[in-house]
């Protein structure tokens, strides 16, 4: 099969604007075509930046995007070469593949391209287009013989000599006797010329998608506050999303590293994020693998809001610590099932990032007799770390763990226990409150309590050295507080020092 090469490079916004200005006289046809190909809509509506400015490494972004169309992608100078003849059929023809590759709104950034039968030919045409500053797609591409010599990288060193010889195009160089050229300019020039005309095979270092995402970024200016690092981190996150999409993975753990300005004395500052080695680190974890850069960005913003930078920062580095393959997701056929809003674990992680993991709690029931031990309000952090430490595969979401979705049967409560539980109060005090006793020996709480029902006796003695519990629970009525659940400590039947009364719950 005849090879078909593409050379692509990112097109920056200034050039696109200049193109439009230069081609003021240009055919009306070319302008909409160019603007359609170089549409400035960024792939993600959440980022304000467009074009190359939205990416930490535009060329790598372009390469990762191109890798889904062909495995033969290589970087040559500041452009990419793609060999697409093998995958044309899969994408429905050459034009369909080109459209998919260049589609504005899907492609990471607007790009310009040229094609040819060899990579060097495509590159030379791309360079010509760049020089002419008008990528007039309506015109047929230049024939190889007419291409100027400076577009051939191997001829760059010999350009003045060749020019004095009267050689300015590929065709003129090719017409020279081969032996003389080899003696005068060396074999590499002849090899390059052969490759450009397709007479010799071309070998490049083919790009592959890295196993681990790791991208550095040099900020445009030194950043003094941690929150301002977010603008740089956003470009890294956009790059990360592209990598995750290409690998069809979701990220679970990330590390953002920043380098403090070494000229400042307080780079040795130590705190939770800085170890005193001139670098700062922030690790980010999500319970559910995600590709969504907006969620990661909001999490990062919450974390960065707590960081104080001891010195200005110029370099950032983002690295994935753990990723896993994304599962497919079934959506409902009925439109009513699709509720608006963000997902549960996104919300919980955002809250935990801002207010601390102890601000989110879910309950698990336990088989116990002491009311305070019947339920366990676990924090989000404890839950996540427990899942990780037991190593039950991939840590699934908090919601699934607490059984919100799966509805795990925590207690096979018989009818008798349910009847008894119906008599329990609906509010429980986190700490039992000691009640003062009046002169008649009755407890007081916002007025004297009237004991309405009871006692409900609770006795517990564990086999080992557990707490010994002997309590008599009463339902009491307080004039100011309604129905209360109080108990009397019954430890030691003698009751020498009088009954000790405690408030334990409220009936609401």
């Amino acid at each position, binding site marked *: 099969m005849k090879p078909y090469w593409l050379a692509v490079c990112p097109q920056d916004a200034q050039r696109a604007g200049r193109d439009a200005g230069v081609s003021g006289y240009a055919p009306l046809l070319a302008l909409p075509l160019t603007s359609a190909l170089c549409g400035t809509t960024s792939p993600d509506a959440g980022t304000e930046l467009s074009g190359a400015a939205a990416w930490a490494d535009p060329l790598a972004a372009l390469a990762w995007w191109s890798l889904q169309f062909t495995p033969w992608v290589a970087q040559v100078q500041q452009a990419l070469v793609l060999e697409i003849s093998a995958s044309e059929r899969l994408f429905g023809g050459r034009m369909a593949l080109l459209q998919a590759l260049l589609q504005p709104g899907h492609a990471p950034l607007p790009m310009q391209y040229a094609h040819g039968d060899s990579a060097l030919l495509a590159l030379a045409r791309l360079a010509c287009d760049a020089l002419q500053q008008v990528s007039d797609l309506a015109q047929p591409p230049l024939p190889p013989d007419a291409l100027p010599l400076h577009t051939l990288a191997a001829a760059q060193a010999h350009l003045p000599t060749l020019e004095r010889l009267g050689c300015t195009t590929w065709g003129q160089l090719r017409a020279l006797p081969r032996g003389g050229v080899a003696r005068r300019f060396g074999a590499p020039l002849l090899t390059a010329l052969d490759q450009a005309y397709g007479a010799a095979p071309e070998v490049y270092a083919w790009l592959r998608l890295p196993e681990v995402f790791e991208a550095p970024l040099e900020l445009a200016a030194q950043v003094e506050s941690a929150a301002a690092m977010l603008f740089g981190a956003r470009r890294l996150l956009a790059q990360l999303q592209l990598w995750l999409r290409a690998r069809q993975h979701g990220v679970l753990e990330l590390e953002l590293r920043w380098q403090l300005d070494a000229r400042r004395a307080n780079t040795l500052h130590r705190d939770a994020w800085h170890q005193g080695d001139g670098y700062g680190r922030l690790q980010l974890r999500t319970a559910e693998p995600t590709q969504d850069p907006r969620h990661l960005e909001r999490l990062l913003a919450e974390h960065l809001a707590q960081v104080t930078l001891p010195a200005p920062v110029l370099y950032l580095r983002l690295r994935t610590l753990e990723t896993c393959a994304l599962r497919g997701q079934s959506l409902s056929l009925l439109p009513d099932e699709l*509720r608006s809003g963000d997902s*549960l674990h996104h919300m919980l992680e955002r809250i935990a990032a801002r207010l601390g993991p102890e601000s989110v709690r879910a309950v698990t029931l336990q088989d116990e007799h002491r009311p305070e031990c019947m339920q366990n309000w676990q924090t989000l952090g404890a839950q996540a770390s427990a899942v990780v430490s037991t190593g039950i595969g991939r840590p699934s979401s908090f919601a699934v763990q607490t059984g919100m979705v799966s509805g795990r049967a925590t207690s096979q409560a018989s009818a008798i226990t349910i009847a008894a539980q119906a008599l329990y109060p609906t509010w429980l005090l986190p700490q039992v409150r000691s009640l003062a006793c009046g002169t008649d020996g009755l407890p007081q709480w916002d007025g004297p309590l009237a004991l309405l029902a009871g006692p409900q006796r609770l006795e517990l003695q564990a086999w080992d050295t557990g707490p010994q519990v002997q309590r008599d629970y009463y339902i009491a009525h307080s004039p100011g507080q309604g129905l209360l659940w109080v108990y009397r400590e019954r430890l030691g039947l003698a009751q020498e020092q009088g009954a000790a009364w405690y408030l334990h719950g409220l009936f609401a």
Partner: protein
Amino acid sequence: MSALPAPSPGLPERTAPGLLRADVWRADALAAPRAQTLSSGDTALDAQLPGGGWPVGALTELLQAPGMHNEWRLLLPALARSGSGPVVLVAPPYLPFAPALQAQGLQAQRLLWLGAADSQGAAALWLSEQALRCAAVDAVLAWLPQVRPEQLRRLQWAAAEHYKLLFVLRPSAAQAQASPAVLRLLLDLDDGAALSLHILKRRGPPLDGPLHLAARPAALLRVLASAKPAPAAESAPSLQAAPTQTTSAHIAILQPRRATP
């Protein structure tokens, strides 16, 4: 097959809407707005609430005197039937006792407790709004003692946009303040057995007198009624003097793991 009645031509039009769930749209009919209310589980209360229940996608305000707690009694039946997603409690005053709530129909797995150290201020509001914006959440109960009307309006907007049950619990002193809530109730306990409910604001004519509801679940009321004959003033000293009398008490659940020596 012959036992089945022959379908009359007019039958589907008359019975099908009643048979189908309210939120299922039949493709040959005009789409109706979504069910706007959720029954409170109390016919007397439902009769007085516009639409026959708690409004979904709107703010309901419950006002109580400080120290009084009747929210679970009022809301539990509706929350138990509100779906299967989380019921978010924002800055509740105490720990909810999940076994008791589960016994009354609200699954413990659905409870989600959100709070922060300074829950009384902006954090509780932020948490409430985050919960309302979450797709999975079914209902939000927020205890906001010091909330301003403009902040409530923001919550009302979020509840309407994301179609959530939202109850805000505030002290009774707030009843003089303006509020964007579509339903405002003032709860008061008469004598421990009856709950009097003043509807301060509703979409409809004002209610003259308070509404009286049973203050407690039926099982609890039965226990209290059966305990009535023994006067409280008598029983307490006798218990104090002789704790071994517990065998004759009305409830005695003795389930020790090991008998005490």
